């Protein structure tokens, strides 16, 4: 049994399976002092626009009211708990619950209770019933450069402090001009949500599991780049700069992917345009606990992790470009979409690898632990080498901060 200090480096596998832990996470992490990606500002184009989403298992609505102001609301009628908004998005003047017709303003205020005064004064709600007490429960929002974050907790830090300076800077870098949504993916993964959270932070796997990278020398751990952690590791980024050919000391023959004879019949798939002055070509940013923001060449996307029980997770992808993309750049993004998502040449493996861990860690595995010692045991930014699990340890630092130590 490991001492409590090193949950960051030695993660017990039973955390991926235990229903009580899962429920504890809903309370301490998802209802806790954390920010969660909800949607993009651009998805709520006009007064009356709404989007439904989740914070953990909690259903959430984001609305834009008549004044154009955004509101975050828990999608649960205050009367008896029915979902108030059912569609994934739309336009409406009011939010009306189907069950008994309680109707809410776009800001969540309860505007009408059918038969509130009863019938001819008989029945109805008691005299001391005050509609002001029964608005949809608020979700605090932060609109950070067009990304809408939400939190269920009153004491969550302001978004900039929460994100940390480097995370803020990287978001500004990408969201420096208006974006437009080009489409969505919804992916079901048969693993615990934490396994995907680790995966997204894991610089170590990218060029090995995703053989396509190495096969076509697109992105290798030996390229220039770095690992950045903010907020004691809660939030992290892994980026690569330009391209390089030296292979480092790791024998490429070990990369099952390097197959000299494999080529692309249509290499146009790999065409890309350098969009950013910093020459960063791949950057995966993870905001604790469930938000991922990616740039892979010219593909830009937000990923939201939605837990659905200890062994099931949904990943929601929002793929976007810039409003002012020229036709060629737009086509590049859409062609490169073949690289990402559930059918992506460099990402499909992430859809199954978590399941392989989920199934690999049952039975006797409930007594064992993962080992996250690559690069030592610290949680810190690293620029000299990405052969380091610092960003994954960072996730467990955040986990421990909120859930406590579970041995």
């Amino acid at each position, binding site marked *: 049994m490991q001492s409590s200090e090193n949950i960051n480096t030695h993660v017990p596998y039973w955390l991926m399976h235990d229903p009580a832990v899962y429920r504890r996470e809903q309370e301490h992490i998802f209802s806790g002092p954390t920010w969660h990606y909800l949607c993009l500002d651009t998805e709520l184009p006009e007064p009356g626009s709404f989007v439904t989403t989740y914070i953990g298992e909690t259903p959430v609505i984001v609305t834009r009211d008549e004044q154009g102001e955004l509101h975050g609301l828990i999608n649960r009628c205050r009367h008896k708990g029915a979902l108030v908004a059912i569609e994934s998005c739309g336009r409406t003047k009011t939010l009306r619950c189907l069950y008994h017709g309680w109707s809410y303003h776009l800001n969540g205020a309860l505007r009408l209770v059918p038969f509130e005064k009863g019938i001819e004064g008989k029945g109805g709600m008691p005299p001391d019933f005050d509609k002001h007490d029964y608005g949809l429960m608020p979700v605090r929002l932060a609109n950070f450069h067009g990304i809408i974050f939400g939190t269920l907790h009153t004491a969550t830090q302001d978004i900039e402090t929460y994100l940390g300076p480097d995370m803020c800077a990287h978001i500004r870098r990408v969201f420096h001009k208006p974006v437009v949504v080009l489409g*969505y993916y919804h992916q079901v993964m048969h693993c615990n949500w934490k396994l995907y959270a680790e995966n997204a932070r894991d610089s170590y796997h990218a060029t090995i599991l995703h*053989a396509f990278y190495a096969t076509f020398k697109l992105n290798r751990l030996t390229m220039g780049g770095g690992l950045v952690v903010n907020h004691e590791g809660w939030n992290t980024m892994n980026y690569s700069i330009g391209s390089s050919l030296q292979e480092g000391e790791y024998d490429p023959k070990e990369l099952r992917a390097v*197959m000299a004879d494999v080529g692309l019949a249509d290499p146009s798939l790999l065409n890309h345009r350098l969009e950013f002055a910093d020459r960063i070509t791949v950057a995966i940013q993870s905001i604790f606990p469930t938000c991922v923001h990616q740039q892979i060449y010219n593909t830009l996307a937000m990923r939201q992790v939605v837990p659905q029980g200890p062994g099931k997770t949904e990943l929601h992808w929002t793929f976007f470009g810039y409003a002012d993309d020229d036709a060629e750049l737009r086509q590049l993004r859409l062609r490169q979409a073949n690289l990402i998502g559930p059918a992506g040449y460099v990402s499909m493996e992430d*859809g*199954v690898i978590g399941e392989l861990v989920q199934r690999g860690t049952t039975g006797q595995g409930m007594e064992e632990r993962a080992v996250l010692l690559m690069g030592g045991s610290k949680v810190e930014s690293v620029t000299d080498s990405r052969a380091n699990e610092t960003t994954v340890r960072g996730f467990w630092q955040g986990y421990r901060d909120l859930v406590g130590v579970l041995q």
Partner: protein
Amino acid sequence: MISFDLERRVRHLHERYLRIIDDDRLEEWPQLFMPDGVYEVTTRENHARSLPLALMSCHGRGMMQDRVTGYRRINVFEPHRYHHQLSGFESEQLADGSVRTVCGFLVVRTMHTGAISIFATGAYYDVVAQDSDGELRFKQRTVITDSRQTDTLLVIPL
């Protein structure tokens, strides 16, 4: 409605497509398309909102062959296979002699472990024409899935 004989040939093309995928003869799959044929897979969600993002999009046989290479040589996944069912065929002749068809499809996925599940339902929206060699081939096959979800991953074309 197209001539019976043409309808029969188009339906045979649909069935051949099905067998090539279900029998794991994917190398033959690009040959069912014109050299510059287009194959795209998207969801009704994206389609209904006129969002251009696709799960897979291959313009020309080259990109299709690369999908086959990914499946056979590069990408990593648990062994599985598809089983297709087709129903609900409709067709119309276009001015240029090609044929526009729609046909519903169901795909059941079986994992090597034995697990069976419905992987996708939807429809094929095709344009079929006669190639120089006299064969009917797809100028375009757009696959629209009813569900917005993909279970685990999509590596074998639908």
